[in-house]
């Protein structure tokens, strides 16, 4: 495997401890530019999303052009450049779920909260996301509420389930 010369990256000026953990991850990968995806995975886990400051920090530390870091961060669906809402609702749009009616569920949630898939409500309570396929086709139509996968859903059940999150704070 190719190796890179370990870079003596300057610490992040904010003093945020999470950058130290990120530094450790980069060090473990010997600051190799090949490890960019692993580093971005780690950064998103630490910060919840990837802001511009973080991307520039990673670019400097790995000694790669910021354009490449930005290019990779925007290429993959998994990386988010915007903060996520307090709760996340993932509607599976895999074929099995689609033929069992998740398009209607998605449309209903979009209407109910006046957001489109990929957006977060203005109050930051709920992010709505679609998934390509959860691989849980036996549960179709399936929706993930935060970490919990729920199957056999209908429009009414989904809306009721979301209301438990969103009506709580009102």
């Amino acid at each position, binding site marked *: *495997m*190719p190796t890179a010369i370990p870079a003596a990256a300057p610490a992040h000026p904010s003093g945020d401890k999470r950058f130290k953990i990120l530094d450790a991850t980069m060090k473990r990968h010997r600051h*190799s*530019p*090949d*490890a*960019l*995806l*692993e580093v*971005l*995975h780690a950064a998103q886990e630490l910060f919840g999303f990837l802001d511009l400051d973080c991307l520039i920090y990673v670019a400097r530390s790995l000694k790669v052009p910021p354009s*490449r870091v930005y*290019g*990779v961060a925007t*290429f*993959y*669906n*998994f*990386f988010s450049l915007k903060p996520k809402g307090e709760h996340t609702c993932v509607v599976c*749009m*895999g*074929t*099995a779920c*689609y*033929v*069992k009616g998740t398009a209607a569920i998605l449309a209903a949630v979009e209407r109910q909260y006046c957001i489109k898939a990929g957006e977060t409500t203005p109050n930051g309570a709920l992010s709505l996301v679609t*998934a*390509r*396929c*959860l*691989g*849980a*086709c*036996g*549960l*179709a139509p*399936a929706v993930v509420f935060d970490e*919990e*996968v*729920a*199957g056999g859903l209908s429009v009414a059940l989904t809306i009721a389930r979301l209301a438990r999150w969103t009506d709580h704070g009102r």
Partner: protein
Amino acid sequence: MGAEDIDAIRERETAAWDAQRCRIAVCTAAGCLSSGAAAVRQAIADGVTHAALDGVRVVGTGCLGLCHAGPLVRVDTPDDRALYDRATPSLAAILVAHARAGTLPAEGRNTDEASFFAAQDRIVLANAGRIDSERVEDYIAAGGYRALQKAVTEMTAHDVVDEIVASGLRGRGGGGYPTGLKWSTVAKADGPTKYVICNADEGDPGAFMDRSVLEGDPHRVLEGMAIAGYAVGAEQGFVYVRGEYPLAIARLKTAIKQAERLQLLGNRIFDSALNFRIDLRIGAGAFVCGEETALIASIEGRRGTPRPRPPFPAARGLWNRPTLINNVETFANVAPIVERGGAWYAAIGTEKSKGTKVFALAGAIARTGLIEVPMGLTLREIIFDIGGGIPDGRSFKAAQTGGPSGGCIPADHLDLPVDYESLAGIGSIMGSGGLIVMDDRSCMVDVARFFMEFCRDESCGKCIPCRAGTVQMHGLLTKITEGRADERDLRLLEQLSELLTRTSLCGLGQTAANPVKSTLRHFRDEYLAHIVDKRCPAGVCRMGGAS
């Protein structure tokens, strides 16, 4: 740790198995876990502990197949076995009471089991229901790592390649390229450094075979990769796994650590000259990364865009070194082939498609789940005998195979034997094994639009035919489903289909038109109904003004 130590583990574990009066295996694949399998397992384990039962073992096992009826529990006694479906923690007390007596309760027993499993032949999934997915000792007791030991101690690298060639195994990721040929190309390639990559970026919607194998039997994949490393002369392997599969990632991590601890991975495996390590690389949600050159770019930390082939990865792959890339299911077939011989495997299946294939049944089918059948079974047998047919009194309309690269197969081809050539002959592909059944409530134009939207979103944007073509085709299909299209649009759609197929850079673009082509071929009347009569026969599409 050498061969004797592994043998000692096998003997000890086998003796422990034989001493068991009752084994309760709870399915802990993602589907069953989502419907509460963890609580069921806990309740049973607590019950067994509380009752202080000797000789009763509770394990978490790989996908038991009947995913729609989860959580599933399999109970084995020396004389009998039973499968319980839709298990709840309250089943625990009943099972524990019966386990004490060594009997099997009748309550909650699954009745579909006989017909579901009758036509199946489980090689890849052989360990599901038998072993604990998280214990390497169970895998060893079930004969695991014997093939690796045989390969490195009794066979030359050349012999191993020969066995794979003799088996007739073809790539299970969908392409169907002869695995043995790929292995021998990499084995012959020059260079001191080579790599083995397992493509676990299972991206087709409606396909969950690889997830189930990785979750249920991760060591099988690792063993296959190590054998491949020996055969082609590589010392480093990578598993590139989808980020959407957290459980598979966790199980793989555990399995790699266990194998390293027992020196089944690492230096001087089984005291031979083989050194082989495996690292994980986690994908980040890009369908195109299932394409091998894009996957390599992603492992190298770049945008997952493909490059033209040749040179193929077998000559210039990861970091420009010769690289062997196979799919999860392909690797899972390796250990049984090495252990039992290529001729044994080649005796299963059809003339040109050998062995078995794992399918994920989903959609409008009574028994959604995971099956493994010999190649050459008919679609009718798979959908109606094994899958239990179409529920809700509906009628069969089409079976979709191969995901966004595949096609829809209509009812008049139900008696077609399922193998690589037959499916290609009617405009679909074998694909990785997703089989989605559609009933009369699905509109084929809408399905084609659904897949085109998928390809449009997942196109990496590197080549123009795919980047612009998928957008234009999706626009045309939307126009048709909204009743705004005329016959010129249909002609344009057909022209674009050809253009994408012929001029795209990689498999994604080259096959993106397949769902359109196959639905046009078999369901042209539905397109015409939308265009001429402004009517959706299935009642799915909302025609402009009509709704």
